[in-house]
């Protein structure tokens, strides 16, 4: 297993899905609706990158463009699917019984477990930008579940906030994975300490410019690191936003 890697924004997998033609039953929306997906790890037709990171298998940076664009109702099992809305609005409907609308800062964890379907839609004309993170569960065929949370950047700026995992106020999932977010509106330095020497941290820059362990990362660049050494995160004066996904091996 490599100890660390840097993945620049443009090195990620790229896919464009149309609501017409071969993907018409999968992709919702009017004929001009398109989903664009940048994948940090192998997913779908993109299979020339890394096959995941620890317990994480999918990290998709997706844009639903066009009114009604998204994924029609489709089945899942087992995966814990987390969605973090960055821009626009996401409507999610699932067979657990949830019909939910999420805006910027909102997120959910949908654990498909023994079987569940969901539908993901952008019901507005402006683009919706969503990060999808798929996590392997620690048990197969768990009862399906859905929980949502909110990251309020205005009230939690300049400090690391745990969104998913074993922490107060976070959405719990059935896996040794922790997802945190740091949104800064001024220059700060913070240290990310992994839970153990066996854990790995995948840091993804949502926006801005960030220096991690003295390497500079721009918008949508990312870094994966294994081992006990803390990550030193340095943000200069401009705004920056970083997601940290920590996982057992």
């Amino acid at each position, binding site marked *: 297993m490599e100890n660390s890697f840097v993945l620049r924004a443009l090195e990620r997998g790229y896919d464009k899905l149309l609501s017409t033609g071969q993907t018409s039953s999968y992709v919702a929306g009017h004929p001009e609706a398109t989903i664009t997906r940048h994948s940090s790890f*192998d*997913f*779908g037709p993109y*299979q020339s990158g890394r*096959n995941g990171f620890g317990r994480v*298998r*999918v990290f998709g940076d997706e844009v639903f463009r066009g009114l009604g664009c998204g994924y029609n109702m*489709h*089945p*899942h*099992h*087992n*995966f814990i699917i987390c969605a973090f809305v960055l821009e626009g609005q996401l409507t999610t409907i699932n067979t657990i019984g949830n019909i939910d609308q999420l805006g910027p800062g909102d997120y959910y964890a949908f654990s*498909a*477990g*023994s*079987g*569940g379907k969901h539908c993901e839609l952008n019901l507005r004309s402006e683009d919706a930008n969503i990060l999808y993170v798929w996590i*392997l*569960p*620690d*048990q*197969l*065929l*768990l*009862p399906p579940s859905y929980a949502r949370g909110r990251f309020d950047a205005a009230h939690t700026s300049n400090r690391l906030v745990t969104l998913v995992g074993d922490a107060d106020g976070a959405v719990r999932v059935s896996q040794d994975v922790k997802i945190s977010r740091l949104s800064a509106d001024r220059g700060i330095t913070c240290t990310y300490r992994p839970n153990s020497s066996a854990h790995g941290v995948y840091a993804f820059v949502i926006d801005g410019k960030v220096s991690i362990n003295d390497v500079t990362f721009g918008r949508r660049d990312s870094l994966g690191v294994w081992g006990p050494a803390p990550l030193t995160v340095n943000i200069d004066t401009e705004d920056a936003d970083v997601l940290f996904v920590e996982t057992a091996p």
Partner: protein
Amino acid sequence: MNSELFKRWMCLGCGFLYDEALGSAEHGLAPGTRWADIPESWVCPDCGTPKHLFEMVEIPYAPGQPVSQQTA
């Protein structure tokens, strides 16, 4: 008789699970059908992901599972 332990395979496109011990009667695979004996042209019955994009997993079942092969 193949004495190797039965294995479980998960679809990386949707999470569909194939357990060699259980097979998948719904999809014409008898209990005990080894992954290696399923044709390479086989695809995930739920999402169409090709067989080679499944991952062998050593994750235990949740308590009470599997109830049946068609738990969805």
